Structures are given as structure tokens and as C-alpha cells.
């Protein structure tokens, strides 16, 4: 299990470039699938037409992957976020991203019925909201539109670098 996680994480940070070419291709495909699944979930949770900016417009998926791959992020939660997406894929026989919105709602509500599913959705929700309502320097709160939607704004001074330049 640990080794499997290592491979997944390694591929995300580029470590698996040292493995054989076929494995690299396989892992890249898996990572892309995970990313597409998470993106689809975020877009369902934060759709267009809401009072909030949509996940698609804010590109919160890029933020999510930057966040979980940063050295200061809890590595166990990082693994859980990735594993949880794979479980959702498996539950929906690899077709989650292709489902219509009503079917996605059914799939996610069903997943939410499980303890791990609920916990995973909570993490996706929090990571998405971090991007949408965190400082625009992190890339997802574009033109501070997350803050504007809530009629609020962040504090001054705003950061000049992400994570205070660790």
C-alpha cells in the first residue's frame, strides 16, 4: 500500500521519471484520470449559475494539486485525497466524469453515505474553498471574484509570495 502511494505521489512530483517508460505512461494516465475525476467533482459542487464563481472559471483543480503537493501539506491527507478519487472512479466503473449532472449527484450522494466518502468530499470541499476564497496569489481566486461574491475582501497587506517563501 505504501509503495503504491509512493508511486502515485512520486509520479505527481516527477520522481517516477526514473522508472521504465511504460510505467511512466501508465502512471501519467492514472494521474490524469484522478485529476479529471476531482475536477468533475469540483465542478459539480461549485457549478455555474450559483451566487459563487464556478469551479471551472476559477480553475480550483490546479490549486488543489499545487496545495496537496506542497511540502507543508499533510502527506496522509494528500494520499487520502488521491485514493478517494480512485474509489469514486471504481464505484462508478470508471465513468464518473461522463455522467450527466443528475447521475453525478446520485453518485456523490451515494458515496457520501460511506464514512470515507463523506470525509473525502469534505476534503475536496475545503480544498476547493481554500482556492476560491484564499488570497488570489495562489491562482484560483481570480481577480478576487470569490471575495467579491461574498461582498468581502482579504486583509492588507496581501502576501507577495505563496507560503511566505519557504
Amino acid at each position, binding site marked *: 500500500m505504501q509503495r503504491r502511494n509512493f508511486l502515485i505521489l512520486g509520479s505527481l512530483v516527477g520522481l517516477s521519471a526514473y522508472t521504465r517508460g511504460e510505467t511512466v505512461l501508465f502512471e501519467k494516465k492514472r494521474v490524469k484520470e484522478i485529476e479529471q475525476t476531482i475536477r468533475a467533482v469540483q465542478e459539480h459542487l461549485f457549478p455555474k449559475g450559483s451566487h459563487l464563481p464556478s469551479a471551472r472559471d476559477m480553475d480550483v483543480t490546479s490549486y488543489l494539486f499545487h496545495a496537496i503537493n506542497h511540502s*507543508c501539506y499533510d502527506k496522509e491527507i494528500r494520499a487520502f485525497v488521491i485514493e478517494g478519487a480512485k474509489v469514486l472512479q471504481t464505484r462508478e466503473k470508471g465513468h464518473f466524469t461522463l455522467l450527466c449532472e443528475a447521475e453525478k449527484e446520485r453518485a456523490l450522494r451515494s458515496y457520501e453515505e460511506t464514512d470515507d466518502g463523506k470525509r473525502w468530499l469534505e476534503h475536496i470541499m475545503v480544498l476547493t474553498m481554500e482556492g476560491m476564497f484564499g488570497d488570489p496569489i495562489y491562482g484560483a481566486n481570480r481577480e478576487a471574484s470569490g471575495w467579491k*461574491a461574498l461582498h468581502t475582501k482579504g486583509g*492588507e*497587506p496581501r502576501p*507577495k509570495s*505563496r507560503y*511566505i517563501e519557504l
Partner: protein
Amino acid sequence: MSEPKYDVVIVGSGASGGAVAYMLCSAGYKVAVLEKGRLIKREEFSKDEIAYVRRDIVTPNLFEEYHTIEERVGGKWVTTPTYASGWSFWNGSIVGGSSNLMSGMLHRMHPDDFRLKSKYGDIAGANVVDWAMGYEELEPYYTLAEELVGISGKFQKHPFEPPRSTADFPQPPTDENGVVKLLDKCCHTLGIQPLVTPRAVLSQDKGERHACYYSNFCGSYGCSSGAKGSAREAFLKPALATGNLTLMTHTHVKQLYAGKKEVEHALVINTITGKERKIYAKLFVVAAQAHESARLLLNSANPYHPLGLANSSGEVGKNLIFSAGGSGQGELHQERLKEIKFDDLMHRGLFVNRSILDWYFVDHWWEGKFKGGLVEFMFEHQNIIARVCKKNEEAGRLVWGKALGERLVKRFTTHKSIRFEVFNDWLPTDNCFVTLDPTHKDKYGMPVGKLRLEGHPHDLKVGEYLAEKCEKILKEMGAENIYSSISSSPPQNLVAGGCRFGDDPKTSVLNKQCQTHDVSNLFVADASFMPTGGSVPYTWTIYANALRVGDHIVNRLKQK
């Protein structure tokens, strides 16, 4: 080539380490302050919620450095490493320590806090003792801290307000939100006297520190104007200006090495290069925050001091205390708001600035006679991510989609939550202490601190008594969805005890001057010395006592 020998080495640059350094450097002594974290300068601080609040940027990564926590579960003691729970007991590993990140609500302890046992007698299961000094001995240093830190406020007579040697605070209170008009009126209706909160935040410029600019994001963040009276702003910068202070960042102290009578050197490791070296001085001051100070002494055991440094009494680490209590809040809604305009309520950044001392001591024919506590009123922290993330469930299911959007916009535009925090004594007991974990080690190979944590049932009763009073105030204000939570779970940033001071070397670690009984050139200057904590945040007392200890060390060095 041997290293320079400093007059004094101070382990830790937080509230107490900074204050001691200031006193010594001002008197002309050469001081080295050893800080494991980095320096974040005033101009580097920002209001980045992700960095400061949601990630371990100013504290160690829990997978590399952690504690183990022992709690009673189902009658058995269960130990959990903090990397597994996420419950960090680090509080700001940067120059100035957690004082950079405080909200700055400061209060002096009351004279009767120094003689709690004499006033109330024994409480079964609690190890309450009187302090080795009285309020009158600390009062001049409370006043000195008030001036140096720049505490703003307004003195108002109250039966439980400690006496003071100056007429009023050096600075007027910080600006206040209009909600205080409503809060004050409701308190008066209920026969309660609200007081203006003393705050370690400048309302006016002080030297090269600038007045508060009301950023709306104070607690948990460093201050970008220098208004907040952190140890970095109030003490370390002036100490550096004397030319007598050497500030060593990224310098973690693994052990203090002591011969039979005196500490000879500190064994330190550079946290970036991993290189170890020894730093020599005539005198050593430990100021690493209570639980870490005790850990350092225990980790410094050697053949001369087999139980740990300064631990012939076996008392090092024992009687660890926190601030007991909890918090509560309620929502003030636009459509039912009384007395004030909604726009005034929603005005960003201004403080609530109200404390209640009416129940600090309770002596009532029906409710009984007991030590109560302090209550602070404030707005719910304005962190945006924290506020959007909370309470997004209905009937056990997450709210998402358009319903979430409507919910969040309503939350941010139609009401504002006002909050209270309860501070009461955490009684010292045999089941709250820090020792060395027998198996877990940090990344430097040293045993981590193992904290056994259990509150005394009396603490909960007092906290609940106070919370009930506060809920009535919120109700009178017209607040909705009022709730409170009093917990026996300790706030990790309000920690004290573990190296009690006292006259008897058999029952205390430090003498009255916070010098260890066993080792003549070793002092512990942080909140470790406190046998009881009072019912106020510790910071002002830590500042004051560290200035007192610094003063004593100066006199001692002069005599030599």
C-alpha cells in the same frame, strides 16, 4: 578556536526570552538568543490565511517534530502522536514566538491569584499552592511591561480590578466597533459592568512602531505596522539596537550540559545545515515555552543530574497548567438589530474591546463562594476560508451547488457573529504533566515531550457557570443561534507550569527569582514558574515576570 563566551545565553525568543534579553542588553551585557525558527520581519508579514492559519508555516512540520498526547479514553490512558491527530502543540516557532500571533487581550492577575490556597483552601484532587511572591512584588514590572509593550486601554474602577501604581494606561483604547453601544447597554440592563479591554496593540504611534491600522485580521497573524506588542517589536528590536544582542535563528537547542554545579554550554544544531556546535556562556536562561522548557531540562540529564537538569525534586514537568474555559457565540441579524445601524456593525476591523470581571470572584448566598474567571467579548474571527467552511451540513449531508452559494452569501451579508471567550483557572493536578516519551524521537534524535492532559472537574463547572452568564448577555443583545462550548480540552497556546517556583527545593524547581534550586547559573524565565495561572491570559504576567527575572540577573551580574 573557542567560541565567544556570552554573558548570558537565552533559549527561546518569545515573550519571556525577549523581555529578559531586553533587560540584559540595555544594561550592557552580551547576550545570545537562540531561536529554532526563522526571523519574519515586520514588512514580511501578510494576512495570508492559507499560510498563517491553514498550514504549519510558522510551526514545525508535525511529521518531523511532534509531541505525544496522553488522554484518558474509557478509563485507560491512550497515547497519540500529534502527527496522527493534527493537534499541534507548537505555537509560533519564529523570532518573537507566539507573541507575534496573539490577539493581545492582556490582563494583570489579581492579588488574590497569588494566594489562591490561602483564600479558598484545598480542592480535592488539585495541587493548589500560594505563589512564592505577592502581587506587590510584580506590580512594578506589570507597569514596566505596560509602558514598553505599549498596552492601550482605559482604567475603570471595579472591585476586582487589580490595583495599579499609575493612573491610567500609556495609550488610549484602540477604536471600537459600534456594537459596544449595544453590548454596554445590555450589560447595564443586566446589572453587569463591562470594562474596556487592555490590549497589546498601539492606538498611537510609539517610536518607530506605528499605530494599529485595523486590518480586520489580528489574532493568528503577524502585525505589519508594529502596533502589536510582540516580543520581537517591543523587546528584541530595541535589544538589537544596543549592539549587545546576538540573535541566532535556525538554532535548536538539543541539550544543556551542566557539570556538578553549573551549566557549561548549550549543544545546538543548525536546523538547515544539521551542523552541531556548543555555545558557552556565564549564565543560561531557558524560555522555550512551558512544555518545551521542561522537555529540554529532562533531555539534559547526565551523570551529575541523572533525573534531568534541575530535577532533584522530581518536579520538572509536573503541574502543567493551561487556561480553562471555552467560548460561545451568537449571530446579530440585520432585520432584528437593536440600538445600532447594520452598517456600523459590519464596519471592518474595529475591536469589540470589552471584558467582564464581575464573576472573577463569586461569593453569592445561593451560587456559593468560589474562584470564577474573566470573560472577553469579540467578533468571530474574520478569516474568510474558516467562515465559508463551517456548518455546511444539513440533515447529516453536505450542502453544495447553488444552495451552498445562497447559504454563504447570506452568511456574509445578513449577520455578524459576536463571540465570548471564558478564561478560568486550570487547576494543577497529578494528571497534567509533561515528561519524555520513551520511544518517540524528533528529527534530531531527541525524545519528544509526552503530555498527559486531564482537566479537573471543577474547571468545567466554573467555565459552564461563566458561559451561562454570557449567553444571557447575547440573548439580551438579540443574538440568535446562541451556543457555547466549555471543554476540558486545553488550549495549547495558553500553557504554563511544569517548573514551579517556591521556597522549598524539595517541592519546587525554581526559587523565587526563577533560578533553579539545583544549578546556580540556570534560570527558567517563561510561564513554567507559575504554580497557578490566574483566570486571565498569561502574556502580561509572562512579560512582567521575565522583566523581573531580567532585572534580578542584571543585579547579580553587577555584583560579580
